[in-house]
C-alpha cells in the first residue's frame, strides 16, 4: 500500500507523551506487518526528515519526505481532549503526486496529495468544507471515503440521508462513517448499509485511533479485496488493539475471534 498523509509532532500533557507521528507516519507504521514494504509520501519539517525516514525504516517501510519550513505540532491536554495545532496559520505547499495500485490518502493541513490509483481510500481529516476526492485531479477506479460524524454532517450525510444519495454525493463506491465509541456505519453503492460494532479494550489512548481505522480499512478492503462491511469490522477490531497503549504495528485481526464487542451499535 502507498500512504499519503502528514507527519507531525504530537504532544500530550497527561500522560506525558511526545512522538513524531501524524496520520501518514502512524498509518504507515500501523500497517507494517499487514502490508510489508508500505510506502509513505509526506511533508515534514526539515529537521525531522531523517527522523521520519528512519522511523518508517524501523518498521520495514519507506518514507518519501518533502521537507518544509514549518514545524507542525498538535498538542493535547489528555488523550480525549481536543488537539491544538501549532502554528495556527500554515503555509500551503505544492501538492504531492502519488500513483499506485492501492493508495490511502489523508487530508493535509499543509498541502495536498494528487492520487491516481486503482483502489483508493480517502480520509479527508477535516470538519471544514468537504473537499471531494476528485476535486484536485485525483482519480481511482474504486474509491471508499472514510468520514467522522462531524465531516459527515458537514456534507449533509447525517442520519436520514439515503444510502444511494450518500455514496453518490461522495463519488464513491463505499462511504464509512466512524461513530467513535458507537462503532461505524458502512454505506455501499448497491444501496445497502451495515452497522459496525466497537470492540472493548483494557485501556484507551485515543490519539490516532481514526488514522488506524482508515489504515486497517485500506488494507482489508482496498488491498485484500474484502467486503467493505467485513473490512470495517476488522478495522474496528484493529482500533481496539491499537488504543490499548498505542501499540504499533497492528497484528492481523482477520482471524481474531477473541475480542469482545462493546455492544450493538
Amino acid at each position: 500500500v502507498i500512504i499519503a498523509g502528514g507527519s507531525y509532532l504530537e504532544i500530550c500533557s497527561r500522560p506525558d507523551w511526545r512522538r513524531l507521528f501524524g496520520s501518514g507516519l502512524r498509518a504507515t507504521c500501523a500497517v507494517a506487518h499487514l502490508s510489508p514494504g508500505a510506502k509513505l509520501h509526506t511533508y515534514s519539517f526539515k529537521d525531522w526528515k531523517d527522523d521520519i525516514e528512519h522511523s518508517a525504516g524501523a518498521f520495514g517501510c519507506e518514507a518519501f519526505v518533502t521537507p518544509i519550513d514549518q514545524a507542525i505540532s498538535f498538542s493535547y491536554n489528555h488523550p480525549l481532549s481536543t488537539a491544538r495545532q501549532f502554528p495556527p496559520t500554515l503555509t500551503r505547499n505544492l501538492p504531492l503526486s502519488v500513483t499506485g495500485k492501492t493508495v490511502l490518502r489523508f487530508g493535509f493541513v499543509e498541502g495536498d496529495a494528487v492520487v491516481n490509483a486503482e483502489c483508493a481510500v480517502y480520509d479527508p481529516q477535516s470538519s471544514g468544507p468537504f473537499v471531494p476526492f476528485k476535486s484536485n485531479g485525483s482519480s481511482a477506479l474504486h474509491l471508499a471515503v472514510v468520514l467522522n460524524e462531524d465531516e459527515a454532517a458537514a456534507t449533509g450525510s447525517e442520519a436520514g440521508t439515503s444510502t444511494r444519495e450518500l455514496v453518490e454525493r461522495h463519488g464513491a463506491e463505499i462511504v464509512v462513517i466512524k461513530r467513535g465509541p458507537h462503532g461505524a456505519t458502512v454505506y455501499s453503492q448497491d444501496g445497502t448499509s451495515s452497522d459496525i460494532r466497537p470492540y472493548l479494550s483494557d485501556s484507551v489512548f485515543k490519539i490516532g485511533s481514526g488514522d488506524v481505522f482508515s489504515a486497517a480499512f485500506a488494507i482489508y478492503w482496498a488491498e485484500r479485496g474484502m467486503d467493505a462491511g467485513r473490512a470495517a469490522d476488522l478495522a474496528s477490531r484493529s482500533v481496539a488493539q491499537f488504543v490499548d497503549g498505542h501499540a504499533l504495528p497492528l497484528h492481523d485481526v482477520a482471524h481474531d475471534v477473541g475480542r469482545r464487542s462493546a455492544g450493538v451499535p
Partner: protein
Amino acid sequence: MFVREVGMSGNSSPGSGNDPAKKRKGAKREDPADRCDLDFSADLSAVNLSLLRTLDAGDVLSVDRASVGSLEAVVCKGPKGEVIGTLAAIEGLAVLLDCLRRGVVYSAKIIRIHGATCTVRVRRTDK
C-alpha cells in the same frame, strides 16, 4: 480550514502562543555540550510481547543499531541480545543513530510496563 480530525471522532483547533515543538523532550537537546549526551524517555515500538513478559520495571536494556533493508533502526536488546523493541517516531532519532555509529554507548532502563507498552529511559552510559 485548520480543524483536523485526530481520533475516531475528535477535532482539533488552532493553537496560539509558544511553539510546543521547542520544548524538546526527545532525543534532541537544546544547546548540548555534546550532541550525543542524550537523556530521554520513550515508549518502545514493535515490542516482542513474549520477551517483554520476562522483564520488569528497573531492568536495563542495551541500545544498538540494526539493519532494516537499506536503513538502520535503533533497537533495545535484552540480556541475551534479543530485540525487545524499537525506538522510532521520536525527534532526534537520526542523531541517536549517528552517535551509536560513532561508538557512543547508551542504556535503556525500563520505567514502566503496561500491557504491550514498555516505557524506557535512554541515557548515555560511556561517560
